């Protein structure tokens, strides 16, 4: 399962700080919601359900955005490496 690194603090405004590296990032609203859902330990089917309750988005688009977004989190070193499946 996906796990956000434990050194990472996330503010309500979407400001992300990695205490391990000193890097900071900003999330847009949907990015923030998804990161929170990941932090809560939700998996993809749960996340897509949550999101489509609230937003107008078709499943295929969401799936593409989601995996692209997770790839970016990975690239930015925000995902626990040994936390991956």
């Amino acid at each position: 399962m996906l796990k956000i690194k434990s050194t990472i603090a996330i503010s309500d405004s979407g400001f992300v700080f990695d205490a391990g590296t000193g890097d900071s990032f900003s999330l847009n609203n949907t990015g923030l919601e998804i990161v929170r859902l990941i932090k809560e330990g939700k998996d993809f089917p749960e996340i897509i359900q949550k999101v489509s309750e609230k937003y107008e988005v078709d499943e295929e688009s969401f799936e593409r955005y989601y995996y692209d977004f997770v790839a970016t989190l990975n690239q930015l070193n925000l995902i626990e490496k040994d936390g991956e499946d």
Partner: protein
Amino acid sequence: MSKLTFERPIIQRINAGLPSKYGMPRRLDPISHIDGTSIKSLLDEFGSPLFVISEQTIRKTYKEAHRAFSSRYPNVQFSWSYKTNYLNAVCNVFHQEGAWAEVVSGFEYQKAIENGVPGELIIFNGPDKSTDDLRLAIENNSLIHIDHFDELYELIHLSKEMGERPKVAIRVNMDTGFYPLWDRFGFNFENGEAWDALNRVMASKTLDLLGLHTHIGTYILSTDGYRIAAEKLASLAVKLEKKYGHVLKYIDLGGGFASKNTLRGAYYPGTDTAPSFDDFAEAITSALMSSEIKPDHLPMLILETGRAMIDEAGFLAGSVLATKRLADGRRATIIDVGVNILFTSFWYDHDIRPVEAVSDQSEDTTIYGPLCMNIDVIRGNIMFPLLKKGDHFVIRRVGAYNMTQWMQFITLRPNVIMLDSKGKPHLIRKKESLETINSLENTPEHLKNFEL
């Protein structure tokens, strides 16, 4: 309860406001219209990709350039450099504005004639003029710019054989402090070869020496190079008058002014670094006016400005084919425009913009063309908004050299349209079809059939 619209999730690194190697990140504003006409509607009507030329911008640029020189010098003539863009509609806008034609091959020469340019207003440059080309140019009283001694002697022979007096100029190359030296064209100034050639022309008695020509290079950012070039040509004119009492009709300083495109890897954008027409005009005209040429013998000043005259008027619009991630995680966007039709992406970091308004978020992106080749990169490392398949983009300042150097490779060359002064589109070059290509081919009888 109606649902909210979903914005694509995005995360971005915050760079503590420090300028990166590429300067402060700049927002790429979308460009949705050209001269008031919607790019999206043009793509719907004429297909993607599509070259769009703004007639209004050509005329405006021409007038600007002409004013810069004619407000400083009594006798100025522009000559449209065909190689830069020889679509007939484009040439004719320049001819309507008053430009002569500058050509460098028999093909370009014929094009100018067919466009209706009078032979005596065609400047024939370059090392490649066949005997037939020269004959025709002599008959038409065109201005033949001699590139090498072989051509000079051939002209002397032809003048005798035809009983005509060809109108000629000598092309001079020189050190203007700008490198590389373009010393493969014409006769060198510093080593005395140009002066030798002029003496040879004067001695022939059968050639009518009208002018001096130089073209010091291309995409030149230094106005000083032009000052030096003008001074050196003026000194030759003075020497000719002293020795032979011969007064030249014109001095031709060629092309080469930088356009506002940004060279690949340049730190500052071309919009900041390219001198204005006024800057170039000031350098050139003040050098001529303060030379020892007698005021009443000041020759016509000819300019063959190419890229700075047309780059701005050309746009290339197209569509996103796909987005993907590279092995290192960076974003790649694949578009339907490759280096085959956008040759200048080898030189320039082209200004590419989304057509539709997209999110403010951008990402370090490499923009690839559709060709199955590694060299097919339109922009490396650009902070670019996230576009998706089917979204449109437009590339600015592509008017020079692309529509002449484009290659038919893997795909076909697209439609080219010109927006007239009211923004109305006119198809000025039809897109190629399989038929266009196959009509030039011939399959021998024994290769027509096969069984698989």
